Structure formats: C-alpha cells, structure tokens
C-alpha cells in the first residue's frame, strides 16, 4: 500500500511529543557562543573597565561603535587607568554582533550578553549610549523598556569569548586569566571549555571535564 502509507505517517505523528517551545514563556538554552547585545563591565570595586582606547571602534567592521576617551579626573577616577571611556555609543541598527570588539578589548570592558530581544521602534532607541550599556551598581545589565528578558537571563555572558581574548585560545587551560566583575566576581569557565585540572582547585569553581563543543541544557549555574 505504498500510495497510502503517507496517511499512516501523518497519523503516527499525532502521538509523538511536540517539538514546539512556547517561546515567550519558555526559552531554549542558548548556544555557548551566542552573541547578544553588549554590556560595559565594571571591576568589583565599581570602577569601569573601559579605558577609552577606542580599539573596539577601530576593529568594528560595521563602524557602529563610537568611543571618545578622556583623562581620568585625579580626585574621582572613573577607571583604574589613565583614561576612561568618556563617550561610548553602539548603534544597533549597524551592529552585526561579530564580537570583534570583545576580542579587541584589552581590559574585557566590553562583552556580549546573550540578550537579543530588543525591538526598538525608532532610530534614537537603536543607539545605546554608555548610560544603557554600563552595568548597574549590582553588576546587572540595565533593562530598557523595549527589551524583553527575564530577570536572570543577563547572567549568561559570552564569557567564552572573553576567555579567548585574554588567553589567546578558546580552550581554557587551567588558570583563569580573566578579571573579576562587579556583582559576579571571577566568572567560572563556561561549558565547552576544557576544565581545570584537579590539583589547581584553588581556582574559582572548576567544572567537571566535559567534551568540547557539546551543548548542555543549561549554560552554567
């Protein structure tokens, strides 16, 4: 009954589980290298990491980043370095989320979160300034009125890429080479990066050994 076997195929599907994720209520875990919108990070003491070097703006292939550095005021420094990011703007109508800015950044000031649900309705909203990009006093991303994400989704960062930029290698090699962040401390290596050897257990939160490149249900706890 080759001609009619199609009927059985469709009928059989009715008793199989659904593949749909009901999106706004439930979200799938994102891939570890997912590139969402940027944040400007701060050190644990609240100082900004950005030193206004404009490397990110220089490397940006879409020319969507505009940075102007300024000398730190001696009595109230904004960043630990000599200079700080006085103006920092990203135009999300141009950004292609290539993450080259993150790789270029010498101080891990700019990283990408996995937040991607921002649908602005005018061009001014598309330009995120330092006020929108800089993490707040608890180290969390600032949620803008047109952004749709749940409370803890900003925990996920593209730390994979931060590790890449600091160690020069995507594989985590046992010694954390990235700096601490306001609100989160030193972030553990992400899933998919090779885990720390057992003897170097003084490192923050070593992860059990897992094969590189597989995807887990939860990116990290």
């Amino acid at each position, binding site marked *: 009954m080759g001609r009619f076997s199609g009927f059985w195929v469709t*009928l059989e599907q009715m008793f199989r589980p659904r593949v749909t994720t009901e999106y706004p209520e439930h979200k799938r875990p994102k891939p570890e290298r997912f590139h969402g919108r940027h944040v400007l990070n701060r050190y644990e003491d609240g100082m900004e990491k950005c030193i206004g070097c404009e490397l990110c703006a220089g490397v940006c292939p879409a020319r969507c980043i505009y940075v102007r550095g300024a000398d730190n005021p001696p009595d109230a420094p904004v960043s630990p370095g000599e200079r700080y990011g006085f103006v920092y703007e990203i135009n999300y109508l141009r950004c292609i989320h290539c993450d080259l800015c993150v790789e270029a950044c010498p101080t891990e000031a700019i990283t990408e979160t996995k937040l991607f649900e921002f649908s602005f309705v005018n061009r001014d909203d598309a330009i995120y300034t330092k006020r929108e990009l800089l993490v707040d006093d608890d180290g969390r991303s600032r949620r803008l009125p047109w952004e749709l994400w749940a409370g803890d989704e900003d925990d996920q960062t593209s730390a994979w890429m931060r590790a890449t930029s600091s160690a020069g290698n995507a594989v985590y090699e046992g010694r954390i080479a990235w700096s601490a962040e306001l609100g989160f401390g030193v972030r553990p290596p992400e899933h998919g990066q090779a885990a720390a050897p057992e003897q170097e257990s003084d490192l923050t939160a070593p992860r059990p050994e897992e094969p590189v490149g597989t995807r887990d249900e939860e990116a990290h706890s």
Partner: protein
Amino acid sequence: MPLLASDPLLRGDIDLTVVLIVIGKTIAVFALLMLAVLFYVWFMRKVIADMQNRIGPNTAGPWGMLQTLADGIKLFFKEQSTPTNADRRVFMVAPYLAILPAFLAFSIVPIGGTVTIAGHRTFVQLADLPIGVLWLLAMSGLGLYGVMLAGWSSGSKYPLLGSVRASAQLLSYEGAFSLAIVGVLIQTRNLSTRAIVNRQAWVGSWPIAHPTEWPIANWLIGPAIVAFVIFLIAAIAETNHPPFDLVEAEQELVGGFHTEYTGIRFAIFFLAEFMNVITMSAIAVTLFLGGPAGPSLGFLAANGWVNAWVMPIFWFMLKLLVLLFCTVWVRASLPRLRYDQLMDVGWKFLIEIAFLWVMVSALLVVARDQRWDLWLVVPSAGLGAMAVYGVLWLSMPKRDELVSHDLEIK
C-alpha cells in the same frame, strides 16, 4: 407531492407561527454553519499541527478556539483594495456569489429528527425539497460563479488562470460526483434528503438475532460503498480542498482567484470554501452514513427532549466530525496533484468507475425486484463491468505513448 416541501410544518395552513419557525430555523442553520466554520478552521489547524508535531493556535481563547474569530475580526477591519483594472461591480459581488450557494446548499441537510416546536411538528432541517440532492448539484454549480467571476473581474492574470482552472476542475469532477450520487439514488428511489435519511433509519436491538438487524445494515455505505469512495474524492475536488487545490496553487498562481482580494471579501471566500467542505461532509453523512440515525438512550422516554432533539443531532455531529477529520487528514498527508494527474483521475478513472457502479447497482436493484438468481446476476454483472472497463482502459492513450508521440522520441 407538494411543491415546497414534505415537511409536516408546511402541510397545513401557514400562519404566523409557522413563518416564525421557518425564520428561526433559517437563522439557526446560518448560525450553526458559521460556528461550524469557526470550529472547523480551528480544528483543522490543530489537527494538522498535531500531525506535524506542533502545537497550533493556542493563544486566543481556551486552546486557541477563538483564533478563527480573531482572524475574522482582523480581516474585517483591514483595508479593502480594488485593482485599477477590475470590473468593480462584479469584483464586489463575487464573494457573495460564492458564499450564498454555500449556505443554500446546506439548507437541505437533515441535522436531526422530527421535533415539535410550539405545537407544530417539523424536521430539524431548513428545507426538505422534493428535488433534494439536485439542489446540492445546482448550488455547487452556482458556487463556481463566485470563483469564476472573481477571477475574471480582478483584471489580473493569475486570478483569471485560477478561475479557469476552477471551472475546468469543477466540470471534470461534476460527472463523477453526480454519478456517485446516482449510485445512492438508485437504492433510495427518492431525491428528498429526508426520505434518504429515513431509508437509513436506525433499526435493530440488542442482542442481534439476524444479520439484517445489524443497526447500520440500512446505511447506504454498504450497498453503495464504491459510490461512497468516489463521492469523497469528487467532493474534495469540488470543494478545491487539498490535494485538489490547484485553483489556488500558491507556487504557481500566487493565491489563485482571490489574489487581488483583501479584507473581509477575502475572508468571505475562505468562509465559502470551508462552508462547502462542511456541506459536502454533511451531505456524505446524509447519503451514506444515515444522517442523524443512531441509537437513542433507552433509559429515557423515546419522545422526550433528549431522544427527540439531542441524540439525533449528536449522532449527526459525530459522523460529521469523523468525516471532517478525514478531510483534514487528507490535507495533511497528500501533496497537490499535477494538473494532468488531476484530469487523469477525474476523466479516466472516477467517471468510468462511477458509471459502471451505477449500472451494476441498477442491475442488482432490478434483480432484487424481479427475484432473479443473485448467484448468476452478481458475478455476471461484475465480469461485465470489468470487461467494459478493460476495453475502455485499453482504448485510452497511455501517458508514455503520448509523451513519445509528442516529443517524437523513439
């Protein structure tokens, strides 16, 4: 036989109450059909979603049941555009020409049994015309005008192509469709849908003592099984339902005849299309599956409101639902036919089979009346039919012959 109907409501004097009952029935049937369309579209989307491991509409109302209503409201408030080249008057009338026959065709469907409203006995059915099933054929033919004129008046090429396809397709399948109905009428010898339903009334009781007491022994799906299959295929083709929806083949014709339509006029075309599907399924229930026939609740009074009103309607709806599920199932399973395949199925296969079936069943009916020896009649009728079809099949050009001839490939 009275010209209007055999409904006992219209037998005596026609006073105000009778008129009010008829008006009430009209409104009720119209509302029922609209609700049925709302339900069917939702049901279709849900079942197809199930068959594709999806969830389907789930936001508007409980389980998304109000999704169709939401779509309708949206379409109602959308802008209606008319193409510059359109024949404006025909363009505006065409959707209503499509939906009116769709509604009128449903009026002959017996939905329930015989009930008493305000002292008048009447059928749960809008009209019981003596011409009955012919009315259905007339209306499905008229429904084509909506499609045809919509395509013509759009002043655009794709709609015109779609409507030409529609008329050719309807014409091709009208033959098989009518012959399938004739296969039933030979058994019932009556065109009235109420008479056909009464012929299939629920008989027998538990325990069953004799094979003829099987409750569904009277259903015409038994003596007209081939006609049933042909009816279903032809009805799907008549309603332009997949896999016969070449009229609106998106890949080839954008939207077919309704390409240029927007807003509520567009919605009306879809309403008409789904109304036709429901009507055809209801007619199939009437002709082959006994209509409202089904077991009544024995522990309640035989003429109480449950057994008089609810149970026949329940059985009718249940059978309708099964057939509607089958249409959705077909829709989800089969890919669209190619145009020459469509024509092949209609002309070279369905019409011949339907015609031979009519002849064979006519012979059997006569043989039963004349008390001929069935052991002799049935095999000879079957052999004769096979011989005729064999001759027809041999005389038909085969596709590979056509191709080699046309392209001169030896």
